[in-house]
Every structure is written in C-alpha cells, then in structure tokens.
C-alpha cells in the first residue's frame, strides 16, 4: 500500500516536472482601446497564452473538415479581415453554402452570433460550422478524436485547460483565439478618437458627415465604436427573401428578412456584401441605399430614398474606405503558426 502511494507520488512529481518549460501558461492581456467598453469574457474561459495558441492552431487545422481540405481559416482569411471574398462560402466537397462569410473582428464584444442571432456564445458558435453539412460536415467528437492523435496539441490542451482535447476544449480554445481578433486602428479611429485630424481627406470628411447625418441615418445602425448596433433589421434588399433571417429563430413573420447589422470595420476588404453576397462593390451598396431599397412590410423606416448626388455617393464610399485597419489585417499573431 505504502509502496503504491510512494510510486504514485513519484509518478506525479515526474509528470509535473516533465512539462516542457514552453508549456507554462500565463494570462493573456487583451489589448483594446479606451473607446471600446470592457469585453465580457466567460469565467470558465479567461484568456491565457496557451489557450490562445491552441485556438490559433485549431483555427487553421484541416482535421476539422471531413475531407481534410477546409479549416476555419479557409473561409475566414486574415488578409480579408477574416472573410473569403466569395458571395457564399464553399464548404466541404465544394458544396455551396447559403451565406456570405462575415468578418471575425471584435467578436469579444458581440452579444449573439450568426446572422439570425440564434447562438448566445462564441464558444457555442464553433459547433455550427463543424456540423453544418454545407460547411465542414463533421461531428465534433470525430474532430476531437482526430486532433487527439497530435501529441503537441494534446499537451497544449492539458497545459491550457487541464484536460485532453474534447469538444469543451475545442470550443473554448477557438473562442479564446477569436477574442484576440481586435480591430480598432483605422484612419477613422485615429481621426475620431485620437484627434489626429490629418487622417481623413476632404472626401472622407464629407462622407463621415453624411454617414452620421439624420439624412442618411447610416450611423443609427452602424454606429460607434463597432460600426454596428448588433440588432436585426430588414433593409429592403428584396420584396421576397429566400433566406428568412431572424424569422428562423423567432418564428415571427414580422422578423422575416431581418439580419444582424454587420460591422463596417474593414468593409473595403470584405466584398462581396450582404448576407448572400449579392452586391459586389461599395458603390453598389451605397447606390442601393440611395434608392431606398425595395418594398417589404418589415423594412426599417430609416431606409428611404436619400436623394444623394453622385458626388455624395462617392464621398460615402470614401468614408467607408477609411474604416480599414491595416495593422489588424497584417497582424502576424493572427496567422497560422509554423511548426
């Protein structure tokens, strides 16, 4: 009896010592500017260096898709502000998806996920693409088994979360990494919040004034600091929508065609636009708003013909272009890790 106990203690001591020094975990400080509120991080997934590293490795890991061809990073590409440049994303086996891949910037502040807002946490959001037969088409338990074959990922998982790779670890680690994707350093931010008045040119200044004016009301839904109100609106894109939008989770016909307002941060890099990727350029989007959208019983009252001149349309587009954060899209900490 004593001997087994002794052996167990020795084993534990050895196991403890055998953790390589690089797997010591430390808290991760999420950098965000003074004009963002404090993010709410779930108590069971506080950010640490190793959790973020594990999430980053998983984000680019192709074992997530049934055909080993697709990772999260296939549809959420850093240089395109984590979108993929396609109208609707192509999933496993080249199957077309149904929606346009959204940016993943500033998810730490997002109150609900997916375009109809049916997912309450970033942790739970991970389950959606993995099991969607149009996206990754794999069961997360199978993903766990595949990932567990990797010794390094397994030791990362143990060091970061104190347990082997399982759906809990996968969802937490991916959420941890994604919370570090913070974008706040556009020309507009420097102008507006840091007082660097040379950051916006004349056209952009005129566009900014229009954007936040009662005339266009753009800022009412795409306001500071995230350039979205995170609410659901029908902007009159169609008279009949193929995609029910918010109605899908509320079953209320008054919510048909309502989608979560997308953030306009890095908008110049995330074409094509709208939930179905139906608009190719910002010029097209602005011209659409200028016409006032199509008739739909649920259309938001703010979407009305605006009577913008071609020059004013161009100014709005220039302003939208000032929302690009080059440091965000070039941040090397967001890229795949070399082994």
């Amino acid at each position, binding site marked *: 009896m004593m001997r087994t106990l002794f052996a167990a203690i020795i084993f534990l001591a050895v196991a403890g010592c055998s953790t390589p020094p690089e797997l010591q975990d430390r808290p991760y400080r999420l950098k965000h500017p003074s004009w963002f509120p404090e993010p709410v991080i779930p108590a*069971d997934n506080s950010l640490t260096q190793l959790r973020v590293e594990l999430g980053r490795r998983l984000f680019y890991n192709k074992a997530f898709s049934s055909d080993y061809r697709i990772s999260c990073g296939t549809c959420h590409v850093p240089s395109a502000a984590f979108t993929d440049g396609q109208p609707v994303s192509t999933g496993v086996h080249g199957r077309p998806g149904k929606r346009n891949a959204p940016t993943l910037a500033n998810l730490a502040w997002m109150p609900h996920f997916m375009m109809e807002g*049916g*997912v309450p946490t970033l942790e739970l959001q991970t*389950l959606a693409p993995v099991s969607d037969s149009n996206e990754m088409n794999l069961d997360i338990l199978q993903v766990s088994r595949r990932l567990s074959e990797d010794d390094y990922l397994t030791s990362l998982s143990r060091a970061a979360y104190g347990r082997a790779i399982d*759906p809990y670890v*996968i969802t937490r680690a991916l959420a941890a990494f994604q919370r570090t994707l913070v974008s706040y350093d556009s020309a507009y931010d420097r102008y507006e919040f840091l007082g660097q008045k040379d950051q916006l040119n004349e056209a952009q200044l005129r566009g900014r004034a229009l954007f936040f004016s009662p005339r266009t009301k753009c800022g009412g839904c795409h306001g500071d600091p995230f350039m979205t109100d995170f609410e659901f609106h029908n902007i009159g894109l169609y008279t009949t929508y193929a995609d029910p939008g918010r109605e899908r989770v509320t079953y209320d016909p008054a919510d048909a065609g309502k989608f979560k307002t997308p953030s306009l941060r890095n908008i110049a890099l995330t074409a094509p636009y709208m939930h179905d990727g139906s608009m190719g350029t910002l010029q097209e989007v602005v011209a659409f708003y200028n016409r006032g959208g199509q008739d739909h019983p649920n259309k938001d009252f703010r979407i009305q013909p605006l009577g913008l001149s071609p020059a004013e349309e161009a100014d709005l587009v220039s302003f939208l272009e000032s929302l690009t954060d080059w440091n965000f899209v070039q941040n090397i900490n967001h890229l795949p890790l070399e082994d």
Partner: protein
Amino acid sequence: MKIRLLLLLVPFILHSCDGNKQKETGDARVTIRIDARVGTEPFEPGVVYTESNGYRYRVETFQTYISMLELVRSDGSSVLVRDFIMATMGSPQTFEVRVPEGDYGSIRFYLGVPAEYNKNVDPTTYPNSHPLSVQGSQGMFWHWNTGYIFTKFDGKADLEGLEGNLLLDPFAFHCGDDPLLRLVELPISSPLIRADSERNFQVHCQVERLLDGEQDQIDIAVDYLTHTQGNFLLARRFMDNFALAFELE
C-alpha cells in the same frame, strides 16, 4: 451564472437525497417502464403501419427527450425519478426509485428540455454519459439556434397506394424550442404505495396518436415536414398530439 449553476445542481442534490432514502428501511420500490406501442403491440421502427387516412407508413427514427420524470404526491410534493432521459422509442427503458409510504397521485414528466437547461446551456460542459452532452444528445441539438431538438419523428409513407413495401414519401417532424415544451401528467388510479411494497408502472406512448391525435389530425399528405423553423405551427401541432399520446397502466 451562479443561479444557473445552482439550478444545474438541483437534480443532483435531489438525486442524492433519493440515494440516501434507499438505505432507509420501509421504503417501497417503484419502477416506471416507458415504452411505445401501436394499438396493443410494441412499436418497432422499420415496421409498416397504416394511419387513419389509410396511408401506410414506416418510422425510421423516433427519439425524444423526457425530463424531470417525477412521482407526484397527493399533497403536491414530488419525488424525482430521473432528471433527463434520451428515449429511443421502440427501446423501452425502466427507471427505479425507492419512496417512503404515501399517496402518490400521478406520474409527471416533460417532453423536451425545460428552458433553464435548454437555451444558453453548453452541451460541451456535460460529461459524455449525460443525455445533454454532445455525445449523449445523439445529434438532438440545433447548432445554429442553440437548444435541444426535443423530438424527432422521421420516416417514409406511401401516399399513392403503391404495391409492396416501397414507401417513397418522406416525413420528418423535428420539434424543439422553449415554447414546444410539453408537460404530461398521468393520474395513478390507486395512489397508496405501502412501505416495503413494490409497484410497477407502465407508461405507454401510443404512436398512432402522434398523427391521429385526440384533438388534431395531422395529414402527412399535406403536413409532412417541419424543422420547427420553417413550420413552427406544425411542430406545435405535433407536440400537442404527442403530449396526449401517453397512457398509464
């Protein structure tokens, strides 16, 4: 957050209370067997049945969450028998509990998962053996609209009157979301359960009543598909029929 954690613990605490009672002498042993039938025969997936319009149909999947299975005393208090059950209908399950002598007026349970365990709850936080875990839920979870699929009833029917067992017309009822939770309460005809005795209850789900319900008839030639979203009303009609399809023997 704290409150939710506490709520999660409640069934375990109740459970352990029951466990303690097991050691007391004088308790009665009660079993509750839940099965599914068509008429008086055991229901079997894959077997061809005929519904009231004369259409032949075959059920391929019939699964449901049953939660908070309780024995209710005549004074309104209750004994929890099992908190969450993933029931594959066609494979009967029996649950056992020890209870002190008393009057037990009914057996009560929910079809589905109560709201506090449904929305904002993360299946990855349960151990694999738990019916609400990723593994235990066996795919009965909506990923794009967080929450459990309460009931799946899938199969094929023959609406054209073809020969043989060639059933070509699919039907699928996938129901789940807070407004679809249904409470079933089945009165016990002789409520007194004596000390040191044994009582066995049989709860039957009459499968034919899912379509040909007591108050509503679902015609699978017209109403054959709901994933709750897309046809919420049909999901509601189905769950209403389902809730009235149980009998206690």
